[in-house]
């Protein structure tokens, strides 16, 4: 029975992967680009599920880690577009030479590395201090939201460094190839699918091993884990850092495909939306949040295209319906259905054995 379940999960995963790999055959360039964007969100959702679904730490601040990754990539793309010249917005703010913090971002490899390391470092710092002092639950959630507020304000305020409210855009090339051509967008799409698959599989291996059970233990009984000899704060800091790094990767892939990043995309509202993807898809399942991220964003796009005036109401209604009727998310619906089918099978076999005994 267990092997069958594993088999089923593997099949679901393989089907999704194959569909994603063949998607370019069915979708227009525009749609493919959208899907690529959704998949970048899905990558973030996996990291967030590791943190919330498995470890029980709710962060309402993952937008900022996503944003830090996105800005790191955007800064490189901006410098590449200006050809080493001062970016336009800096000139407008009266700067005459490239500020110190922009210098490392001239090199693509450094920019990519920093896009992962900066969010990870900030998460490690915040996580280490809060978890070590046994600040958890709602208090941590509030802190994580405060982090977003502080950093977004900083981003908007430092207009000469970050482009302020309009953010960074007008990118041209990456490694010398045009960023906007359909061919490179196709490549970005496949890279996103690849990264998604790698992160999904590695997180799954983590979660299925002893480590995953320790995380669930921390989620359901942090104090009890202390008396089994574990130090939960080390684990929580690690998972928080890891999920921030994953969010950074997602942010970089997002910028490549969307071509713009601004403070409104990384603030409090997007951060809360990210948690909704996980909740809608189903916490603690890894595959659920992937489905949730794609589903919510596809619905958002679909509604806004067909009903430009009412789409926000539709979206709100959808959230309410799912929370009320599907507390375990979309994947919860599947497991319920599977259980019901299994029960039917069981009763069927009982009836068969009964009819045999009658003979």
């Amino acid at each position: 029975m267990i092997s069958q379940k594993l088999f089923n999960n593997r099949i679901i995963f393989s089907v999704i992967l194959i569909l994603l790999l063949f998607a370019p055959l069915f979708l227009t360039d525009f749609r493919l680009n959208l899907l690529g964007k959704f998949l970048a969100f899905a990558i973030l959702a996996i990291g967030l599920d590791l943190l919330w679904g498995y470890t029980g730490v709710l962060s309402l601040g993952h937008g900022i880690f996503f944003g830090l990754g996105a800005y790191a990539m955007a800064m490189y793309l901006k410098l590449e577009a200006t050809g080493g010249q001062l970016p336009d917005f800096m000139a407008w703010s009266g700067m005459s030479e490239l500020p110190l913090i922009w210098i490392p971002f001239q090199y693509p490899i450094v920019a990519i590395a920093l896009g992962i390391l900066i969010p990870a470092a900030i998460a490690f710092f915040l996580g280490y201090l809060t978890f070590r002092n046994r600040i958890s639950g709602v208090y941590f959630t509030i802190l994580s939201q405060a982090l977003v507020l502080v950093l977004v304000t900083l981003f908007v305020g430092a207009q000469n460094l970050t482009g302020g409210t309009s953010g960074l855009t007008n990118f041209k090339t990456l490694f010398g190839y045009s960023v906007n051509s359909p061919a490179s967008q196709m490549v970005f799409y496949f890279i996103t699918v690849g990264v998604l698959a790698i992160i999904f599989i590695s997180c799954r291996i983590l979660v299925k091993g002893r480590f995953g059970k320790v995380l669930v233990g921390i989620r359901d009984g942090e104090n009890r884990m202390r008396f089994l000899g574990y130090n939960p704060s080390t684990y929580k800091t690690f998972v928080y850092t890891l999920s921030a790094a994953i969010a950074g990767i997602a942010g970089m892939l997002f910028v490549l495909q969307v071509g713009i990043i601004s403070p409104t995309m990384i603030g409090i509202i997007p951060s809360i939306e990210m948690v909704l993807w996980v909740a809608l898809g189903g916490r603690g399942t890894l595959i659920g949040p992937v489905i949730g991220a794609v589903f919510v964003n596809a619905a958002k796009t679909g509604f806004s295209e067909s009903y430009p005036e009412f789409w926000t109401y539709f979206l709100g209604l959808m959230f309410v319906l799912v929370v009320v009727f599907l507390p375990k998310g979309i994947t919860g619906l599947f497991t319920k259905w599977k259980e019901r089918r299994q029960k039917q099978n069981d009763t069927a076999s009982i009836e068969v054995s009964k009819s045999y005994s009658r003979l």
Partner: protein
Amino acid sequence: MTQPVLKLAKVIVDFSGFKAINQLDFSVQPNRVHFVIGPNGAGKTTLLDVICGKTRATQGNIQLHGKRELSKMSENQIVHQGIARKFQAPSIFPQLKVIENLEIAMKQKKGLFSILRAKWTKQEKDKIEEMLNLIGLEKVRNELAGSLAHGQKQWLEIAMVLIQEPDIILLDEPIAGMSKKERDKTGELITQIAKERAVLIVEHDMDFVKEYADVVTVMHEGQLLFEGSMEQVQNNSKVREVYLGRKVESDVVNTGS
């Protein structure tokens, strides 16, 4: 006298003015089933708390094997010194399977990187198998622990404490809410456990104490009132006096004699 496994010297636990434990000297000998009894508020549970690090001693020393000082260590460090605690309410992990509960409880390196690299060894599998047999849950090993009956949860938790291979086990009211049959099984389990280690139990059920105790300590107002066999305890005038002041519990003592 043999060297005690655990020795508390002049321990004070002060809850902002109220001394839950007051100048307590207390020791636990190896391979004994050691019960702690006393009226409500005598400091029994606080005694367990202070040993396992849940509560800090305001003053005094707690020594393991006469050398290691526990009062400055964090809870998880104390566990690795060889002290395991079972709480009053069953606190197993309901979302994990029975076998997974044992897997994370098992004695092993519990640092982040050791767990990330952890792989099943033959020894570990055998140990868990042995434990499942001991508590009689081998048939439900793959069930979620949350779906077990109350008694089974208690045994699973005792097994989770045992599999840490501690020198001392602290049990807080292990038979509360159990049926007669479950109590007998728990009693046998405790006797068996004590062959290799010390067991320190806080319990209210005097019949149970009488049946399984090697040593009984009576606590009163944060101090040690009397220590001896159950028979000596029952015939001690000081103990009677303390319990007689509390009618219901004095009846419990008398039904034992």
